[in-house]
């Protein structure tokens, strides 16, 4: 990991935070209030080479930035940190037979659709489950919280997959 890779990551962070607060937070589907949490794409695209503890800190900074903008101190941070905590475990679980090659990235176009779905769906839903359960502080209104997790998760997942097709450039 050189300085170029880190500055690229920082740029990704800026773009995703701006997109989330300027565009996606204004989307509100149905009376349940479904707002896609697209910014968590950042955690999915952190290169494999970044050490785990640094991934946790990146996730915390990302979550807390969003929290400042939407006045929910700690809500997004707690969910993104949990997601970053799970990521190495998921990566190990679905690793290709020879491990991850140097110079490859966790992108859909490089790793293939089925790998990417196995990778992103558990992480997105882990994040959303933490987020909505913390938001409603426990398990009351269980059905409504459950519906929110499922529907918002689907919306976020679709956007993340679309973003993979839009942003990928062939080398």
């Amino acid at each position, binding site marked *: 990991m050189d300085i170029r890779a880190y500055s690229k990551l920082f740029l990704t962070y800026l773009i995703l935070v701006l997109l989330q607060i300027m565009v996606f937070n204004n989307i509100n589907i149905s009376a349940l209030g479904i707002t896609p949490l697209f910014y968590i794409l950042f955690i999915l695209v952190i290169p494999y080479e970044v050490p785990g503890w640094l991934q946790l800190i990146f996730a915390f900074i990302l979550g807390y930035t969003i929290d*400042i*903008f939407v006045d929910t101190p700690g809500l997004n941070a*707690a969910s993104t940190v949990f997601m970053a905590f799970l990521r190495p475990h998921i990566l190990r679980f679905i690793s290709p037979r020879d491990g991850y090659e140097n110079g490859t990235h966790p992108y859909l176009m490089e790793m293939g659709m089925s790998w990417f779905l196995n990778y992103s769906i558990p992480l997105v839903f882990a994040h959303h489950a933490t987020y909505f359960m913390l*938001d409603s502080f426990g398990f009351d*209104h269980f059905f409504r919280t459950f519906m929110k997790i499922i529907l918002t998760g689907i919306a976020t997942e679709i956007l993340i997959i679309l973003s993979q097709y839009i942003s990928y450039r062939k080398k």
Partner: protein
Amino acid sequence: MDSLLNFLKNIHFLLIFIVLEVISLVSLIGQDVKRNSVFYTSANYIAGQIYDLTWRYVGYFYLREENAALMQQLSKIRSNSTTSYFLDTAKFHERIDTAGKLKYRYITASVVKNSVARQNNFLTLDAGSNKGITTDMGVVSASGAVGIVVAVSENYSLAISILNKKIGISAKLKNSNFYGSIIWTGENYRYAVLNEIPNHVELKQGDTVVTSGYSSIFPPEIPIATIESFEKNSEDNFYKINVRLLTDLKCLSNVFVIENLMQDEQLQLESLESKITE
């Protein structure tokens, strides 16, 4: 010593995870409605600038509803103006003297950030201490009450929305003056519940609920909601009332912030209450 270092090396990932989660959860649970500093809220300078920029474009989407509400308000004012009255000089009329002291001042502001999706929602307004806004001022839209200011920076202010489970707004029935408080249930952003109305009061669907004026924040008689449904509760002697909020918080753009010029006086007097009962 070596084995201790090794142990720490092995669990550093878990340790950092736990530390970061604890920081997040402590700031989430310790979240106070009144903020000491605006820096960690959306009323800070950078957030305000970005929301301003967004609002310049998103604001257009709400113009239609906004115009309708303003036209309605205007028609109400027009119909009360002197030109709308027929002057009947032949008869004797009793007049009420309107000479008095100004108690409420209305400051206009635009909502630059708003949400309805969470359990505890806040609004950010584009007017702050530069326009004379301070904390504990009421926020109303053209159609009804929407929130209370909780933090102020120079150019922005943060208001707790009526769609926030942490506040209740003191309210009364317009017809009968029985008072209670309106609290959001966190489910649908158009509906809330009205508590503390005793069972013996007669209710009708469609009755208006207005601010009580007891709280020193809102003037009395500002409409908040209409009664949607109600049922008698056998466990205690109070109704379960569902009310429909008059303001659609999802398309809120221009609001008034209400300054109560006699708020300090009232609060000072009311603070004596606890001293006397001691």
